[in-house]
């Protein structure tokens, strides 16, 4: 479903992604983990072309994302993206946040978009927040609206860039529950996360990155108990024993 081949990217002299190759089969959930500055966020942002790449290729559902001939706007409708800082539209209500793109991009009628939007918000536990502006919602609620907004385009792939890092601890669970539910529904997902327990529980593969490279790819049961690389062992000994 997602095929990343030999991707390289530099900011000046700084090599942020070095020869990244990664396959994400349909309905798989992949966690990108690693120390900060490892290039996880940059990598996930290249999958929907929020970041450019210097060399290599990224194929999503048969479409080469960084090919200049690709209609990137159309390709992006198939890829939902959830940001660390939510990025909800502050001047629109929760429901309007969810319905604007389906109307303007997919040409859905207001009634159809609202019907679908209300279903999504309700399924995410926000049935009483349709008319609330983002400024009136908690961080956890805002992030769930952001998830509903991404799902409203009916994407086949969801990308999460540290979806719980900006949240107060008591709100992390409600957002993780929403992502867990998507995993159960068979959504193909890539998640940059620092929630190791969550990664271990729902992911099919753990991709460990450091200094712009993929150091190790392993199923969670192996990665969290017996990682091959010294770099991953060191990382885990720090994050699991703090």
């Amino acid at each position: 479903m997602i095929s990343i081949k030999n991707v390289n990217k530099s900011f000046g002299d700084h090599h942020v992604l070095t020869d990244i190759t990664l396959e994400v089969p349909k309905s798989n959930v992949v966690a990108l983990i690693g120390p900060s500055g490892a290039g996880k966020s940059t990598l996930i942002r290249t999958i929907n072309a929020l970041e450019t790449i210097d060399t290599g290729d990224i194929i999503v559902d048969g479409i080469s994302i960084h090919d200049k001939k690709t209609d990137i706007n159309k390709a992006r409708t198939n890829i939902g993206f959830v940001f660390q800082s939510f990025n909800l539209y502050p001047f629109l209500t929760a429901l309007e946040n969810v319905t604007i793109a389906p109307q303007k991009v997919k040409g859905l009628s207001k009634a159809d978009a609202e019907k679908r939007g209300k279903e999504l918000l309700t399924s995410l536990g926000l049935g009483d927040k349709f008319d609330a502006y983002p400024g009136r919602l908690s961080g956890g609620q805002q992030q769930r609206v952001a998830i509903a907004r991404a799902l409203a385009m009916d994407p086949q792939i969801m990308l999460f860039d540290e979806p719980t890092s900006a949240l107060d601890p008591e709100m992390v669970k409600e957002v993780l529950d929403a992502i867990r539910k998507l995993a159960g529904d068979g959504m193909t997902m890539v998640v940059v996360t620092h929630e190791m327990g969550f990664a271990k529980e729902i992911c099919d593969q753990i991709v460990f990155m450091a200094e712009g490279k993929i150091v190790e790819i392993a199923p969670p049961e192996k990665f969290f108990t017996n990682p091959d690389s010294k770099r991953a062992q060191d990382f885990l000994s720090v994050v699991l024993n703090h």
Partner: protein
Amino acid sequence: MNNQLDWSVIPNNMDVFIQGAILTLEISAISLLLSIPLGIIFGIGRISRNPIIRFISGAYVEIMRGVPLLVLLMWIYFGLGQFFSLGSYWGSIIGLATFSGAFLAEIVRSGIQAVPKGQMEAARSAGMSNFQAMRFIILPQAFRRILPPMASQFIILIKDSSLISVIAGVDLTLKAKNLAATSFRYIEIWTFVALVYFIMTFSLSLIIRAIEKRMLKSEQ
């Protein structure tokens, strides 16, 4: 010279003042409406990725800001007027609109740049084109932020419209000037004219303040 104030010159010539005030309002309103699209187009042009568009927009803003309005009006009326039959009416409107548009462009640019980058990223991630993201997500937010400086610019536009009297625009200022020259009631007439300009600008202030309040309320 008599030092006795005689205000009867005002009611006795009310029709003249009203005619002048109507032209001032009309020219200001049309110029204002034309300056908004100019401000948006060149404001976006200033931050375009295309270097040619950026250059043209930058040149427009810098030239308009660098030339006095009085000189611009003269140049349009006597210069452009040689090739196109603009007359003082359209000459005034073109001058005021292009002049004000340059200042609005800078205001629009700053408003767009004040919207967090994540807003554009979220809109583009949902499949919106750059144009759609601007139209539906960025500009509505930029507009809320720039209402106060825009209001100031519109007020300046109304006041600057008094300069069209130099290219024979028979506005409030020129009417007053002519009347003062024949009646010698300088203090009474210019005091009244100042009051009329103030009423126009203050009304505009109140309208924009009301719009601002309504927008803030909708985000609560």
